[in-house]
């Protein structure tokens, strides 16, 4: 997705070479890594990269009718992507024999302003005006992030239970969630909270920036996939730039998401969402290149930098923040209002005392970003990966027996009577469970994130119904299997389930 926090550095260092390395005639105006380009060669190369990714992938099919959903945050990368794609789709009137690459492109914008409370103005109206004004032929779909709590985001269309946190704080090993009826969550049954309130409550209940950021990207992806299905799109284009993917690679690894990492940073992912191909056509461009492109094409005026919830958080706010480097709200507000000249903005960033990692490294070693992205693109997912076993929250495949693994390497109990029970029993729960164990419906990364959630009694927060529906459907399948063989099960073998 095209996050606004992509570092865009418009002013580069002075080129050492006076002429463009490509045409060798015109004077150069831009430096990309070690190469200097003139304006027209830069644009040619940039457009070429975009088109190569699309043409090399499987997204263009021979038969008619593939629709694209373009994720459009309004930020620099998605703005450039929209421009590139609509150019690529355009057919000169006299070329009658040519066929459009895709049968249609739908633009989808998610308004996240509900995350920041009342005082923040929504982006939806502004974005819609820009898109409808400049691309009147392309259908525009605007959704609000809080809509994900609506019943139409579930498969059945009306699912009335939610998943909420019941466990203790950090350190407690019992996985802290349960399924409950939707209305039981609100303090008084006649006062149902609005979806926006629910969304804010959910984010407020997460105690760490990292967990919030995770949830934020899962919700966004879920919404995009849902909208794509609704609009009959079979292709989803995300505007992740090379810089962004490098940051993602490192931060996802640190979050314990290495298992699904190959899918999360793939140029083309045709497996994780059934019936849809996810493409990242911007993945070969640095954020800097995107910024330069937007400037050359005069797109900067229509780039909308919305408030991101990491805005204004210091460099240690979350894993991703830390990985990205030390940008603070200061720099971004300056960017937003446009009062700060690019060069001084650059200075603001670089002088920040916080640990800047990727962006900092890439400055000193200009090939860092491309090395990481290329490494990541070489990764393949495990053959044993079962794509049907998807995490209820992030919709990514689950690696099996994560709970056992964690229990074995992180012992948090002592055997109650050390003589009778061997250390192995540490892996077993000491107390009988009141609620069924739902751990297996979540991937390791989400399990870690959920431990940063405060209990429902304090917050009244719950996950959107789509999560609960996925959990419940899976549980019911297991229950159905059990019913089939019920007659052959001995009573006391499965006490926990029998009591339910």
């Amino acid at each position: 997705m095209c996050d606004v926090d992509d570092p865009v550095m418009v002013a580069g260092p002075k080129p050492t070479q006076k002429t463009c390395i490509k045409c060798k005639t015109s004077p150069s105006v831009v430096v990309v890594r070690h190469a200097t380009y003139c304006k027209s060669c830069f644009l040619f190369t940039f457009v070429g990269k975009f088109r190569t990714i699309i043409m090399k992938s499987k997204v263009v099919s021979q038969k008619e009718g593939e629709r694209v959903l373009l994720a459009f945050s309004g930020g620099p990368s998605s703005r450039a992507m929209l421009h590139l794609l609509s150019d690529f789709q355009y057919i000169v009137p006299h070329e009658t024999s040519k066929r459009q690459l895709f049968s249609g492109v739908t633009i989808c914008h998610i308004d996240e302003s509900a995350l920041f409370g009342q005082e923040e103005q929504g982006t939806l109206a502004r974005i819609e005006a820009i898109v409808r004004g400049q691309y009147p032929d392309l259908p525009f779909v605007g959704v609000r992030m809080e809509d994900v709590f609506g019943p139409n985001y579930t498969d059945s269309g009306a699912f009335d239970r939610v998943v909420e946190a019941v466990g203790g704080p950090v350190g407690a090993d019992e996985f802290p969630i349960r399924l409950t009826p939707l209305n039981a969550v609100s303090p008084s049954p006649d006062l149902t909270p609005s979806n926006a309130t629910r969304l804010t409550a959910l984010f407020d209940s997460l105690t760490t920036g990292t967990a919030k950021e995770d949830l934020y990207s899962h919700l966004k992806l879920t919404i995009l996939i849902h909208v794509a299905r609704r609009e009959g799109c079979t292709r989803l284009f995300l505007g992740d730039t090379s810089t962004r993917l490098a940051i993602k690679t490192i931060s996802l690894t640190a979050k314990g998401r290495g298992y699904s990492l190959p899918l999360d940073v793939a140029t083309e992912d045709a497996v994780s969402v059934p019936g849809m191909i996810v493409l990242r056509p911007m993945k070969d461009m640095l954020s800097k290149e995107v910024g330069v492109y937007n400037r050359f094409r005069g797109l900067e005026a229509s780039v909308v930098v919305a408030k991101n919830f990491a805005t204004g958080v210091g460099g240690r706010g979350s894993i991703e923040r830390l990985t990205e480097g030390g940008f603070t709200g200061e720099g971004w507000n300056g960017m937003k209002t446009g009062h700060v000249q690019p060069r001084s903005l650059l200075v603001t960033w670089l002088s920040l005392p916080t640990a800047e990692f990727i962006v900092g490294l890439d400055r000193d070693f200009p090939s860092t970003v491309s090395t990481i992205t290329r490494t990541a693109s070489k990764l393949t997912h495990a053959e044993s990966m079962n794509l049907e076993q998807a995490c209820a929250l992030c919709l990514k495949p689950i690696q099996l027996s994560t709970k056992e693994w964690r229990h074995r390497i992180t012992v948090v109990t002592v055997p109650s009577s050390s003589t009778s029970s061997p250390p192995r029993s540490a892996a077993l729960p000491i107390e009988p469970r009141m609620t069924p164990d739902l751990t297996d419906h979540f991937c390791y990364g989400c399990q870690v994130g959920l431990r940063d959630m405060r209990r429902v009694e304090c917050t009244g927060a719950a996950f959107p119904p789509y999560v609960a529906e996925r959990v419940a459907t899976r549980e019911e399948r297991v229950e159905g299997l059990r019913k089939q063989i019920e007659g052959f099960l001995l009573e006391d073998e499965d006490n926990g389930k029998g009591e339910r």
Partner: protein
Amino acid sequence: MVKLCGICENERAILKRPKTAQQICKTCFYHVFETEIHHTIIDNNLFKRGDRVAIAASGGKDSTVLAHIMKTLNERHNYGLDLSLLSVDEGITGYRDDSLETVKRNQQQYELPLKIVSYQELYNWSMDDIVKEVGLKNNCTFCGVFRRQALDRGAVMLGVDHIVTGHNADDIAETVLMNILRGDVARLQRCTEIVTAGESMIRRSKPFKYTYEKEIVMYAYFKKLDYFSTECIYSPNAYRGHARIFLKDLEAVRPSAIIGKQFP
């Protein structure tokens, strides 16, 4: 009011566990620390009964705790291992000669046989000589390659089947990060393996794979283990330093980041 241990709810909690942020007492800390390593050894089938195992000992905290733990667990769970200490003398004046004294003291405390192999006798070059020749740049590359082989040759001299090293979770996470940054996919695949076999077919393993560096320091501190804690005078590698600082920052944001990196 005295804060009670989060596990036994009996004794006073005296430390906050870096891995889980639980506040626990000393006894429980020893228990969980040792049990986790025992699980790692059992689950990965690191040893067979009767194996002769050399502990790679530098005199630093990791290898000192490793020697202590291996001896303790071997006796407690009856692994039936024949343990010994193996040290490499790189020939770094003012660093290795002092740390080897620590190893010699450990040998007496744990009553294990000790073998020291030196670069001087194996290669006829000490690190001091190498640094004189190549300077302070890239000297770590020589040292690393030499040590790997020296350990293997020492192991052959001792006649052991297996070497255990004190690499901890932080070290491995750092290596993962380094390999991503360097774009070394082949190494990235290999670097998280708990057991590797070198050319000499002597198995090497890392029982501390899932153990946090901080907890090793804590264990050594509470057990009052005798270890040597000076950085090598020929300075650590700069690029790895970036990764190390970044990793410590990550740990501060979310402690599970260290284990997370190893989740295969």
